[in-house]
């Protein structure tokens, strides 16, 4: 095993229709026109020395090390900035070049410390490599002169040029004394990440890299994505983990277990210890970029809070008792069978995890269907993107986004609605920003002024700050403008869609009551701005829609998804690069968990359980008869529990108590059950109500696959042994065995083989193929062996695209005198979901608590000042948290995140749900805000219960003699 070395081609790849042929060092090479000489050489395996060039960023031409000679031309041009031309004859190694390069290196090294042996980058330093490559043997200038290296000069005076290390960022250190001012970090921050947090300060010899206005990194605009650290050719920007541990000795490519972008990383290891996670340039979702979570926040995997031994207890008021795995499995199986015997086959169920692998999810739903013999299986997508599955399934025929992420490179107009990509999907947001800087236009539809509305070098053409809960009215009004102003793409609609359905829909949206002027009164969106935005989307070229939970988590979530599909079809924006309807999915494998048959009504591949043909496939393979009736959804399970006819639940990798709406109702449902089995890394909030705790494993400890928001199936590879003893799929397997099922999987690849054998859209997927191709986007089968980056190219999967009327129905959750404000919820860059992972990392440096964003006007009316504790109350409950006064939210709207269990924003949210899918209406709750002087009663009783429920009994020890 060795560390995976990626070739650095020096400058980015060029896509050109024509190629040119040139000769470099006697070798003939064909490259796309416009390719740099440096890249052309690298593609032929010729390494030109370089320092300021790297292929993630554009050429800069500052280090003067990559000079070459070109026959017939004077001088020694820099190979990174010189494009290859037909017939060029280039020499990369001549005596003249050698002399020049040594001279350049000599100058660099004269202002660089000579501490290679004790340097953190020893062995992984491009400066060191280049000194070797050019044969540097002496530095005639000496080291006594002016320099940035030593704190004091030879006479003991303070060296004004010296700057100490900046260790403010918890994950990396900036050591200016090692900086060669190549600007790679500055350019990576600008071109790759798009934050522009770094600059070169000063001029000439005094030039230094500075964050913000020469601030420390933490207080600058830096978002800690790690692009600068990755770009740095020296130890100037270095991961603290490398400083602490040393260099890795082997690595494996795996997939990040945070958001739905699904970034590929090289897990660089020393033995079983992770040294660092480095984004993989061949990863097709992230193209070599990362964010603060995937790059740095993996420390939770070895956090002391992890539970490593199975535990059981009779009652939730008892302390936990650690037991052997055998006892845990036997006990659990006994309990589940007892409950079924006593209360009926339907009295138990399971919840699959959007954080676990496809294979693990498949096994849990199989356990429920084949082992529990019912269809009471659901997944956390219920509470996030179930409307996406339903809405897009109805309109197009597939329950998934239509594009790959690369498609954004051809987008001319983006609609971002109900999503906050720079916080929720940061790596894709960077790709969006890159395209926007190239000139694409942006329409943001969001109650809040998210960062994308205006961030350095990016500004939305239109921001429509609608009232929470009025998505459908706004989208229908946009359709109204497009239809009534004659902006529809009639040819596309006639070719691809059902014309009579379109006519019906067009007549519906054209009604005056749907126009922006008529709807402005309750949407709060300026009619003229909406008209301009609609015109821009219809006429601005390739239009792509990106949306998130701000669309789905509403009482009309499914309707809003259909409204987006209508807009895309009406404007002909489906079926090619640069367009489409694209859900930004929240969790790493929420797409996969839906694909794997986690819903009570669907078998893998979105096939309804009532379909005899589909059921027979599984019945034959599994050797059991399957129930043809859909089972219970999560809210129904909890309702049934309260009513007494649902008594046992197996929850894998999900914290329903914290993440599901109306916490009190969830708690009541869980408390009414007799056997709640929580299978997780930590004693999460749900575990406070559990009777069995099965320790889970992290993504670093298992093999499998995750499917990201673009339907891309990425490999997850095991880099360390499970600290708890078993990977999650093995735990489910052993539980199934204890229940008497005869399962014989030896490796997750065999589970994938079963998925492929039973599910047409996965028919072509297997581990050997994934190892070879890196990743593949489903559908992948005999007709599309390489997968499907873009769907509906020649026609919709369902046949003809379906236009569906989208009547706006206001939610029942209404403001009134007691609850005059609307609360909407979201997330923040540094934390993830319920925070179980990120709160156990240094990411809390950025976001240590949930804050309530309040508009200055609303704050003033209530006498609330910035940073003060406020009580946030709804019809469901009340909690207390600190206020942040900001005009990012409109008056009448307040906003918070739900990352911290001591805030429990979901004690506020109600149990209203999407009409079609029961997806909770997290994004709209009528609330009141008032000054508070301490936690609410509920918070106090909750934390007392949590503390009591987390007690673990000391193991009984034999008394000493």
């Amino acid at each position, binding site marked *: 095993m060795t560390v995976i070395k990626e070739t650095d081609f020096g400058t980015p790849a060029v896509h050109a229709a024509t190629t040119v042929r040139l000769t470099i060092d006697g070798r003939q090479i064909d490259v796309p026109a416009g390719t740099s000489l440096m890249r052309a050489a690298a593609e032929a395996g010729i390494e030109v020395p370089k320092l300021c060039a790297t292929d993630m960023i554009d050429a800069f031409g500052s280090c003067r090390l990559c000079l070459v000679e070109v026959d017939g031309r004077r001088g020694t041009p820099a190979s990174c900035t010189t494009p290859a031309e037909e017939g060029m004859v280039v020499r990369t190694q001549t005596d003249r070049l050698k002399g020049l390069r040594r001279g350049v290196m000599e100058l660099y090294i004269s202002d660089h410390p000579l501490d290679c042996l004790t340097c953190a980058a020893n062995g992984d330093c491009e400066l060191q490599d280049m000194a070797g490559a050019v044969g540097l043997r002496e530095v005639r200038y000496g080291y006594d002169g002016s320099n940035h290296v030593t704190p004091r000069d030879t006479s003991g005076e303070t060296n004004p040029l010296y700057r100490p290390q900046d260790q403010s960022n918890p994950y990396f250190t900036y050591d200016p004394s090692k900086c060669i001012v190549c600007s790679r970090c500055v350019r990576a921050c600008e071109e790759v990440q798009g*934050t*522009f*947090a*770094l*600059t*070169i*300060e*000063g*001029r000439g010899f005094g030039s230094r890299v*500075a*964050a*913000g*206005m*020469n601030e420390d990194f933490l207080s*600058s*605009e830096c978002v800690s994505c790690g692009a600068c650290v990755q770009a740095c050719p020296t130890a100037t920007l270095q991961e603290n983990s490398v400083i602490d541990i040393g260099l890795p000795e082997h690595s494996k490519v795996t997939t990040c277990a945070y958001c739905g972008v699904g970034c590929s990383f090289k897990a660089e290891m020393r033995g079983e210890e992770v040294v660092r996670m480095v984004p993989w340039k061949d990863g097709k979702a992230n193209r070599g970029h990362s964010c603060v979570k995937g790059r740095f926040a993996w420390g939770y995997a070895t956090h002391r809070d992890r539970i490593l031994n199975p535990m059981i207890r009779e009652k939730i008021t008892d302390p936990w008792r650690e037991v052997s795995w055998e006892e845990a499995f036997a006990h659990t199986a006994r309990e589940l069978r007892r409950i079924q015997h006593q209360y009926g086959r339907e009295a138990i169920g399971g919840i699959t995890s959007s954080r676990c692998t496809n294979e693990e999810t498949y096994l849990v739903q199989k356990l429920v269907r084949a082992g529990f013999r019912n269809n009471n299986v659901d997944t956390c997508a219920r509470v996030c993107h179930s409307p996406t599955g339903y809405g897009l399934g109805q309109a197009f025929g597939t329950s998934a986004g239509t594009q790959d992420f690369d498609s954004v490179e051809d987008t001319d107009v983006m609609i971002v609605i109900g999503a906050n990509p720079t916080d929720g999907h940061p790596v894709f947001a960077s790709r969006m920003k890159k395209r926007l800087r190239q000139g694409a236009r942006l329409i943001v539809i969001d109650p809040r002024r998210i960062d994308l509305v*205006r*961030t*350095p*070098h*990016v*500004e939305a053409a239109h921001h429509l700050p609608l009232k929470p809960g009025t998505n459908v009215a706004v989208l229908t009004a946009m359709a109204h403008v497009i239809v009534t102003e004659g902006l529809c793409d009639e040819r596309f609609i006639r070719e691809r869609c059902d014309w009579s359905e379109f006519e019906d829909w067009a007549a519906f949206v054209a009604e005056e009551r749907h126009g922006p002027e008529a709807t402005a009164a309750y949407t709060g969106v300026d009619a003229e701005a909406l008209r301009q935005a609609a015109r821009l989307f219809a006429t601005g070229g390739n239009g792509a829609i990106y949306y998130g939970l701000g669309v789905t988590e509403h009482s009309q979530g499914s309707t809003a998804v259909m409204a987006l599909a209508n807009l895309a079809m009406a404007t002909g924006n489906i079926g090619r690069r640069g367009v489409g309807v694209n859900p930004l999915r929240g969790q790493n494998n929420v797409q996969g968990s839906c694909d794997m048959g986690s819903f009570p009504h669907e078998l893998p591949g979105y096939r309804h359980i009532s379909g005899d043909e589909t059921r027979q496939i599984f019945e034959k393979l599994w050797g059991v008869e399957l129930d043809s009736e859909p089972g219970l959804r999560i809210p129904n399970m909890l309702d049934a529990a309260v009513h007494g006819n649902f008594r046992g639940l197996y929850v894998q990798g999900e914290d329903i108590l914290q993440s599901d709406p109306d916490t009190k109702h969830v708690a009541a449902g869980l408390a009414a059950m007799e056997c709640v089995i929580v299978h997780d890394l930590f004693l999460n909030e749900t575990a406070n109500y559990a009777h069995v705790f099965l320790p889970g494993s992290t993504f670093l400890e298992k093999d499998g696959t995750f499917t990201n928001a673009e339907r891309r199936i990425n490999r997850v590879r095991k880099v360390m042994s499970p600290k708890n003893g078993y990977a999650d799929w093995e735990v489910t397997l052993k539980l199934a065995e204890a229940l008497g099922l005869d399962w014989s999987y030896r490796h997750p690849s065999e589970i994938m083989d079963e998925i492929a054998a039973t599910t047409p859209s996965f028919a072509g997927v297997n581990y050997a193929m994934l190892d070879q191709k890196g990743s593949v986007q489903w559908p992948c089968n005999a007709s599309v062996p390489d997968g499907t980056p873009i769907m509906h190219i020649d026609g919709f999967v369902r046949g003809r695209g379906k236009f569906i009327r989208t009547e706006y129905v206001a939610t029942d959750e209404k403001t009134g005198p007691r609850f005059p404000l609307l609360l909407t919820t979201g997330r923040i860059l540094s934390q993830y979901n319920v925070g179980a992972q990120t709160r156990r990392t240094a990411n809390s440096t950025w976001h240590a608590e949930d804050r309530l964003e309040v508009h200055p006007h609303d704050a003033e009316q209530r006498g609330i000042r910035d940073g003060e504790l406020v009580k946030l109350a709804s019809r469901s409950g009340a909690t207390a948290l600190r206020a942040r006064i900001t005009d990012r939210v409109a008056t009448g709207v307040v906003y918070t995140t739900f990352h911290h269990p001591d805030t429990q924003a979901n004690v506020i949210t109600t149990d209203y749900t999407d009409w079609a899918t029961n997806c909770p209406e997290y994004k709209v709750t009528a609330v009141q805000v008032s000054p508070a002087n301490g936690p609410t009663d509920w918070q106090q009783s909750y934390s007392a219960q949590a503390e009591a429920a987390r007690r673990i009994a000391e193991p009984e020890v034999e008394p000493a003699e």
Partner: protein
Amino acid sequence: MAAADEIQSAQQATARAIAGAHSHREGALLPILHAVQEEFGCIPPQTIPAIADVLNLSRAEVHGVVSFYHDFRDTPAGRHVVKLCRAEACQAMGGAALAEQLLEDLDTGWSGTTADGRLTIEPVYCLGLCACAPAAMIDEKPHGRLDAARLTTLLSELAP
């Protein structure tokens, strides 16, 4: 403290107004920085985020530009600015000694301002007056063939 805050926010508002007046221009940043320095005698650091915001740049970018140019200051200069040439020709003609003497007489250093706030002495590398070295520029006006006496006279003729 409150007064300092008020001055800061007034400066930010002024900088914002200046930036807004120029923001339609191509390459607006340099004209804005000149106008801000004209207004305050320097580019007060707290105005940088305001200028960045108007142009939709990051504050790092604006800081990078401000710190690149010698002529943008972060604190106001004295009432008169004296730029003494330190380039080769002037050095050869006794410029170095002249400068050393002046700094000693005024009890200040390079880029320093006299205690009474009257004079700021700055180095400059060539004023294009090599033929009449040593040279200096006093409040935008070039002077050649300097010696200690002439320099003292010139400075004494300046307004207090």
